[in-house]
């Protein structure tokens, strides 16, 4: 029994324990805390499976959903006791438990009964990698072979933001998201938060840009980098150094759609200079992927930051 096996067993046991904790938790807050811990352990599990790209994504998504869920739990707290008293009937709960058990057993059967060796496209992907001038096969899969998935995923993210914005009352439409974190003209926060918001963003911005750039050859990517960039903006906003722009701001909207637009443009040009939608001409794959990734990073970072900021809660500038 090697040390690696022991570590894997500990990680797997922790995963099950934290997942159980998230489901069995009495309050929404405790469930969210367990879920965030679950995300961290899951990222560790991906590292153990040598899928560092997935681990980075899991860590980024986990941090993001953790913040969103914590905010939701805080909002639900006043009504939580009432919701608790309206537990569904024992029969319904038993049916739900049975259904979950069947799904879990089915998934387990599929995983355990997989053909040996599992059918894989990995050798084909590795063989075609030189054609893209990329060193990281994950980036090649995301932006060359399965680019359509990536494109649609970014459009879905934008649709999510529109969903959040649509929660704003009519009179506040076009205004700034979230509550004002400090009065106009007041000094930014001092103390621990102010210090952190001064020291961390310069480092975070470099790390975020690096993650995007290095994705060509190493684990990283536009999404992971964008998450860090968005987090730096959120930190500066919490400390009162910056305010969220009004959702009617044209520059903001341009930043939000720049990535998907660049992606669509490159995709459509594929009809003219290559074999079809999202096809890259020979030798041009890498520059075109960079041309997609840079605006995409800006768009995803802006979308994530505004998702966290919430729906417009203050009127447009003209009406104060």
């Amino acid at each position: 029994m090697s040390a690696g096996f022991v570590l894997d067993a500990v990680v797997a046991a922790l995963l099950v324990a934290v997942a159980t904790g998230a489901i069995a938790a009495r309050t929404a807050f405790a469930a969210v805390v367990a879920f965030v811990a679950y995300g961290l352990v899951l990222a560790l599990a991906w590292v153990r499976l040598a899928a560092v790209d997935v681990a980075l994504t899991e860590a980024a998504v986990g941090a993001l959903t953790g913040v969103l869920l914590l905010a939701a739990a805080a909002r639900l707290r006043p009504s939580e006791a009432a919701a608790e008293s309206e537990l569904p009937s024992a029969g319904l709960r038993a049916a739900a438990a049975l259904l979950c058990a069947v799904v879990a057993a089915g998934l387990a059967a599929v995983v355990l009964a997989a053909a040996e060796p599992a059918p894989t496209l990995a050798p084909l992907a590795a063989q075609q990698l030189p054609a893209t001038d990329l060193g990281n096969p994950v980036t090649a899969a995301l932006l060359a072979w399965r680019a359509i998935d990536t494109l649609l995923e970014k459009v879905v993210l934008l649709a999510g933001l529109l969903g959040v914005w649509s929660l704003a009352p009519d009179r506040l439409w076009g205004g700034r998201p979230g509550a004002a974190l400090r009065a106009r003209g007041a000094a930014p926060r001092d103390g621990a938060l102010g210090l952190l918001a001064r020291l961390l963003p310069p480092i975070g911005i470099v790390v975020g840009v690096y993650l995007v750039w290095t994705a060509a050859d190493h684990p990283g990517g536009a999404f992971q980098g964008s998450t860090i960039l968005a987090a730096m903006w959120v930190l500066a906003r919490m400390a009162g150094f910056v305010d969220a722009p009004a959702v009617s701001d044209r520059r903001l909207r341009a930043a939000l759609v720049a990535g998907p637009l660049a992606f669509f443009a490159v995709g459509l040009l594929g009809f003219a200079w290559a074999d079809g939608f999202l096809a890259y001409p020979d030798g041009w794959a890498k520059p075109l992927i960079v041309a997609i990734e840079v605006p995409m990073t800006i768009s995803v970072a802006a979308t994530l930051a505004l998702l966290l900021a919430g729906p417009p809660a203050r009127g447009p500038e003209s009406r104060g």
Partner: protein
Amino acid sequence: MSLALDAFTVAAVAAGACFFLAGTAGLLRFPDPLSRLHALTKADNLGLGLIVLGLLPQADGVLAGAKLIAVWGLAQLAGTAVTQLLARAARRGEGPA
């Protein structure tokens, strides 16, 4: 020489793990939020610090070592700031205590 460095790694990482264990015990057993935070910071500062110190001889070159130290430095910065914020919230009686 290599044996001495390995022994140093084992000793330092084990000491760091002890701080994590003590910090976790404190987190679970201490009665009030400020004491629990106090226990946590020991794990963050000394525990992680000793583990990084222990891993330095095993690092693959100067750059890898610098990265380890940077990880510790960033954890220090974030941990300290977040502890301050939590402590302030706890004193105001906000949040689930």
